[in-house]
């Protein structure tokens, strides 16, 4: 015997609606259902016009992020029963423009991600005959945590600074820049510094820490940003006190 739980879902279709509204749906509260299962139940059985993104259902693809009762979460990772007796309020991720219903427009994040050059940069590629770039376990551990990011953008929805300053490079992009900076195979730190050590890069962060609190992969972008601030400050003082060392 399963009881029902009510979902109050944000609806907005820019072609027909002047402004967004909320629509309530009663769905069975199965104990092994996550919120995404309930949304799929609505889509399949109650209202086929509801639009939302999802793919893997297992916390890997990073597509199904939404605001649940005001908190950014992956809907595939939150059980319905934990929200009893309900209702559960479901909204699109905060700080992003809405395309339709629960689907947001993410090109701002994608552009920022490109700007930090999140790939290995080599001054000169080692010839194939010399084999792979080897790494010790310690060298792997230096960046592994930051490599767990799945680009779900929950940190952007959680970050009040990004909400106020849309030009802020933001948590995930900086953490991913750091992921490659800390990789022993990478030589692109200097190129990334020109993007990350700027007023609209790390220096806009006031260490609220919500990015790390909501991260479903424990990446700790706030930690990445503060570490980068220390390094960038050290470099700044070096270039002021020892200008000859600045190449």
């Amino acid at each position, binding site marked *: 015997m399963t009881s029902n739980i009510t979902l109050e879902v944000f609806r907005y279709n820019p072609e027909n609606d002047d402004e967004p509204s909320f629509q309530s749906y009663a769905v069975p509260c199965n104990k092994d259902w996550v919120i995404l299962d309930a949304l799929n139940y609505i889509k399949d059985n109650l209202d086929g016009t509801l639009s939302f993104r999802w793919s893997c259902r297992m916390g890997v693809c990073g597509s199904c992020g939404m605001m649940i009762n005001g908190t950014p979460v992956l809907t595939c990772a939150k059980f319905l029963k934990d929200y009893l007796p309900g209702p559960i309020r479901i909204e699109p991720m905060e700080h992003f423009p809405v395309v339709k219903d629960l689907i947001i427009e993410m090109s701002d994040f994608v552009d920022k991600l490109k700007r930090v050059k999140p790939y290995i940069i080599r001054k000169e590629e080692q010839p194939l005959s010399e084999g792979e770039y080897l790494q010790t376990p310690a060298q792997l551990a230096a960046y592994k945590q930051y490599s767990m990011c799945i680009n779900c953008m929950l940190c952007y929805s959680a970050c009040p*600074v990004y909400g*106020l300053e849309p030009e802020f490079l933001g948590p995930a992009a900086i953490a991913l820049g750091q992921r490659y900076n800390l990789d022993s195979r990478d030589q692109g730190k200097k190129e990334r510094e020109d993007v990350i050590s*700027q007023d609209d*890069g790390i220096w806009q962060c006031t260490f609220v820490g919500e990015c790390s609190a909501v991260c479903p992969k424990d990446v700790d972008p706030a930690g990445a940003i503060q570490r980068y601030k220390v390094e960038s*400050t050290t470099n*700044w*003082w070096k*270039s002021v006190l020892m200008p000859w060392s600045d190449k």
Partner: protein
Amino acid sequence: MKKSNEPFWWAMFGAGGVLSAFFIPILIFLFALAFPLGWLPAPSFDQLEMLTSSLIVKLFLFALIFLSLFHWAHRFRFTLYDGLQVKHLNELIAVLSYGTALFGTVAAGWVLFFG
């Protein structure tokens, strides 16, 4: 690309935060609680005068006041900036915040070294 000057202010903010977090609670405990309430024997005016006439103590107090003020200024600047969302007043807020800290620093230096 233009270099950001934030590292300068952030370094003062960080140094001031560390110094004030370590020392100000001790000073508050001694001078605001332990001495007035008689938990510890209070030093006399002459003893304090002698203590603060030493150059090392003067330098310590100067560094503590100077960096704590700049710590405050940086935090206050961002509190106003984000809290009141007055982005267009950024320059004015920065000048007033750091200016107040600079004024306090000069005043502290005057009292400590020329007073």
